[in-house]
């Protein structure tokens, strides 16, 4: 490898993920990078946000300086952030909320990831170093949403690979991820294997492959990530 390549910031990753949205899509965003996606909804597009704690169709997160004016303890998202009301939103209990998820009524979920396997297995709930972890709603979302996007840095801070032949962290769900968006690549999970769709500006397919354990399929229309 040559000199250190530029990587996408978390905001740019969220921007790239926002290109997967479509008008009227029902979307559930996990905590972390996924939450940022709500800031990049394409102009004129209506997205119906779902939060597993029982709301649909709400508005943006309350920002730090709006808390005094707008925060309400009874209007939060799954990350515990205060959210805002929007005309046409509605509320429901947890069994109904996860019925929506498990029943395939969420078009798209974006989940943070620790590892993703060649077959689309997702590990995102437990750091083995900590010994314990929170399952939360991730297993249901990974199994139930029509499309699952895994968002993560391509390698760990220590340079360990995260896209692996087999995950060695405990799984969240098997064969659930449809698209992996990292700070250097966009990779589609297909029956034939992982297809490198896009790479970050300045990166080559070989350089992405070097940081990816399974063999990447390089299609003729491989593109640079653009915004």
């Amino acid at each position, binding site marked *: 490898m040559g000199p250190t390549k530029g990587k996408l910031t978390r905001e740019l990753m969220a921007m790239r993920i926002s290109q997967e949205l479509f008008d009227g899509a029902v979307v559930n965003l996990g905590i972390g990078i996924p939450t940022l996606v709500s800031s990049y909804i394409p102009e004129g597009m209506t997205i119906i946000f779902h939060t597993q704690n029982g709301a649909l169709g709400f508005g943006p997160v309350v920002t730090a300086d709006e*808390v005094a004016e707008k925060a*309400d*303890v009874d209007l939060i998202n799954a990350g515990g952030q205060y959210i805002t009301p929007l005309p046409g*939103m509605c509320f429901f*209990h947890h069994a109904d909320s*996860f019925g929506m998820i498990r029943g395939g009524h969420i078009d798209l979920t974006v989940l943070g990831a620790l590892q993703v396997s060649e077959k689309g297995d997702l590990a995102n709930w437990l750091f083995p170093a900590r010994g314990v972890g929170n399952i939360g*709603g991730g*297993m249901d979302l990974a*199994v139930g949403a029509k499309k699952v996007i895994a968002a993560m840095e391509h390698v760990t801070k220590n340079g360990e690979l995260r896209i692996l032949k087999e995950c060695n962290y405990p799984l969240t769900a*098997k064969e659930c991820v449809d698209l992996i968006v990292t700070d250097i690549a966009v990779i589609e999970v297909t029956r034939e294997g992982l297809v490198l769709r896009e790479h970050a500006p300045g990166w080559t397919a070989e350089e992405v492959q070097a940081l990816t354990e399974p063999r990447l399929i390089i299609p003729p229309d491989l593109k640079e990530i653009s915004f």
Partner: protein
Amino acid sequence: MVNKVVGSFEEAVADVFDGATIMFGNFAGPGGFPINLCRALRHKGVKNLTIIGNTAGGIGLTTDFDDQAILFENRQVKKVIASFPFSISPSRPSPCEKQVLAGEVELEIVPQGTLAERIRAAGYGIGAFYTPTGVGTVVEKGKEKRVINGREMLLEYALPADFAFIRAFKADKLGNLVYRGTQRNFNPIMATAARITIAEVDEIVEAGEIDPEAIVTPGIFVNRIVKVTKQEDFPRHLERSFWVKTA
């Protein structure tokens, strides 16, 4: 008519016994959590409790409040059944986390949707159900698995309780409840799944003062109602409805 209104939180939890199983409505913050019932339970001091809820308290959000963590601090808990039992921050472990890691408290961790569905199943007389959630993960350990409609699924059993401690917005005197925004969370389903359901509410009104089309928890599920007299210092705007009318 049976009077469901109870004068104090202490009175409301007076018959909770050592070894009881108690559900707590809650999600990731003080909204929708029966904080006063929880405090009364700590005060009562009963031991060897099994507690069921999304979290087990003390998950480390910026808003600090008295949640189930106070029951661990008081050594009242024997077992936890939860989806999100630990702190969000490894450097600030919750009392539950410490006691689970020390082997002092037993933990059953359950995916959130499965937890909700198991509670509903208990309330609604369903013995068990098959769900795709958890297949291929630690969750499937010891569970029956079968392929339904081409998909692997796990058999999950109903989860009942002796008591449900729930939080709602308004009750009428028959026990009919309405909630406020995401306050609903697990509260309406827990109300169905316990032998005794106790609701902590902001307001108690006469029967007929709540729109019958908007009642979420029918009164037949609620045994006791207690009114909150002192509002907590949370960002709460009771005067504001979430109804953003366009008209």
